[in-house]
């Protein structure tokens, strides 16, 4: 198997501002104020795409949410041409649009911020192939990120963004008024060529585990039903608090971790087959799951 053409897919590495007028991003309102007692901090939820990109959602002028890559390798906020068009965001002749409001999931809001309306070849290529498993609308680069102290820990479900009390200097294009260098043009061309051979993968389908309505606890090296919600599927199937769950779809259950692993494995099933122990007796219980959390 020859995989040799694939190095042209190093993902979203490095987006450049190539030409256009030097943008003067307006200072965010209030940024010049005297030192405040504490800068606000936000828990920013993110998703890791299949391509290992960090995806954060944001609303633009109240619309969205849109999907953005958190990209220290991008000099500004980029909104793809397609997404901008679809939602009536128009750029001036210099390629920049001013957003009244950029609202980042988790609560941070930036007002009067400029966005580059452009689709870097990395974004178009990945979208065309459906590689990330999610549609990308752009990138959050320097002009957004530099306004925060950003903590990223992939073992936790949120990033922490703390507002900084300064006005980051605006980015400048590195090649004034010039054209994209030949290699860059070649790369863009290759990405487009690749798209011809790839079919767009459809959006992912979510399979949510069924709802039983039991509160569980670990006890004496096993899993015990702590409480059964009245009217829940577990209640209807006759599960009671104190029941010890021995097996889940014929697999032994020694811990909550085991049980949750099995629940994920059998998420698409409409029925859950349990073996429980009650008063020294083993019982088989079949629970018809319902929708719910």
């Amino acid at each position, binding site marked *: *198997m*020859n*995989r040799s*053409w694939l190095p*042209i*897919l*190093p*993902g*979203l*590495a*490095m987006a450049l501002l190539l030409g256009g007028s030097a943008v003067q991003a307006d200072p965010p309102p209030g940024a010049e104020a005297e030192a405040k007692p504490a800068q606000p901090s936000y*828990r920013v*939820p993110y998703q890791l795409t*299949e*391509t*290992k*990109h*960090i995806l954060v959602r944001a609303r633009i002028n109240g619309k969205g*949410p849109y999907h953005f890559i958190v990209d*220290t*390798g991008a*000099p*500004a906020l980029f909104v793809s041409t397609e997404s901008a068009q679809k939602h009536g965001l128009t750029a001036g002749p210099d390629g920049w649009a001013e957003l009244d409001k950029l609202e980042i*999931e988790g609560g941070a809001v930036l007002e009067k911020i400029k966005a580059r309306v452009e689709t870097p070849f*990395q974004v178009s290529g990945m979208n065309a*192939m*459906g590689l990330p498993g999610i549609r990308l609308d752009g990138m959050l680069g*320097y002009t957004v*990120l*530099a*306004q925060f*102290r950003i903590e*990223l820990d992939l073992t936790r*479900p949120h990033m922490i963004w703390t507002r*900084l*009390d300064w006005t980051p200097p605006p980015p400048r294009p590195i*090649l004034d008024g010039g054209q*994209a260098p030949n*290699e860059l043009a070649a790369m863009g061309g290759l990405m487009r060529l690749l798209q011809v*051979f*790839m*079919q767009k*993968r*459809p959006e992912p*389908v*979510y399979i*949510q585990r069924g709802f*039983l*309505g039991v509160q*569980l606890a670990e006890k004496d090296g096993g899993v015990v039903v*702590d*409480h059964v*919600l*009245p009217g829940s599927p577990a209640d209807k199937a006759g599960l009671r608090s104190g029941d010890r769950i021995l097996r889940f779809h014929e697999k032994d259950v020694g811990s*909550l971790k085991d049980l*949750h692993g099995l*629940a*994920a494995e059998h998420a698409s099933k409409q029925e859950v087959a349990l073996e429980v122990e009650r008063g020294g007796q083993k019982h088989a219980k079949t629970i018809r799951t319902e929708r*719910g*959390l």
Partner: protein
Amino acid sequence: MTLLSALLLLVPFPPADPQVAVEPPKAVGKVTVPMEILKSKHIAVEIKVNGKGPYRVIFDTGSPVTLLGNRIAQDAGVISKDQARTPALFGARGMGTAKTLALGDLVVENMPVMVMDHPALRAAARALGPLEGIVGYPFFSRYRTTFDYQASTITFEPVEYSDAAGADLMQMVMLMMNDRSNKPIQKVQSPRTLWGFRLEKPTEDEESGVVIREVLPQSPAAEAGLEAGDRLLELDDVWTESVADAYRAAGGVSPGQKVKAKIKRGEMEKCVTIVPRAGL
């Protein structure tokens, strides 16, 4: 497929890369390194590869790979002189391994690296001085990484992250090319917590949030005062625009954790605290 075949011929390539074991980061505390903000507003840092360097590279959270240019890859012995001389599109040599990659006091062993002269990097280097590679996901995923643009520093604290090898983009693309069924990927959502509500997002529903259809008595949702008919707008700071969003939010929550939920009842928005329990 002729065009693709032609494309394949353009790039010679070494034999398949061996699977590289990911080493956990050496036990060090917090390490802070300076970052240089380039005129282009990219972040540059200095790294050493196999003890050679320092080399000035871009630090890029948007890069799923760590990338070395041919010059430093050869200099550090990641590729041989002969390999470096073979003509290839963008000087692409595929994946290799750096025995060590050091950034300040941080040393990562067996770092998977892609060797290539990235055109964007070369264009930037012409304007900004030497830029010899990109440090990406396989590096920063091993740490709690804090960027402070105002102080021009990055701080790293080791974490136990199990998936630090990085994306095998090549494998993903190959799989997709071979899979002609065009089936969507399936993602299982199986939170470890019991909340006690049923959520719905009717297809014609254009309003923000999801509808809480049912709240079970004696459940954490009931104890938090939620009622059927409320709209759930946010759960644990996640915008719940779909039922899948709510399950994703719940998936990040541990039993017993106090979780903020923003709901809309009639025209009133309010925040409540839910404490979900271990359960199903």
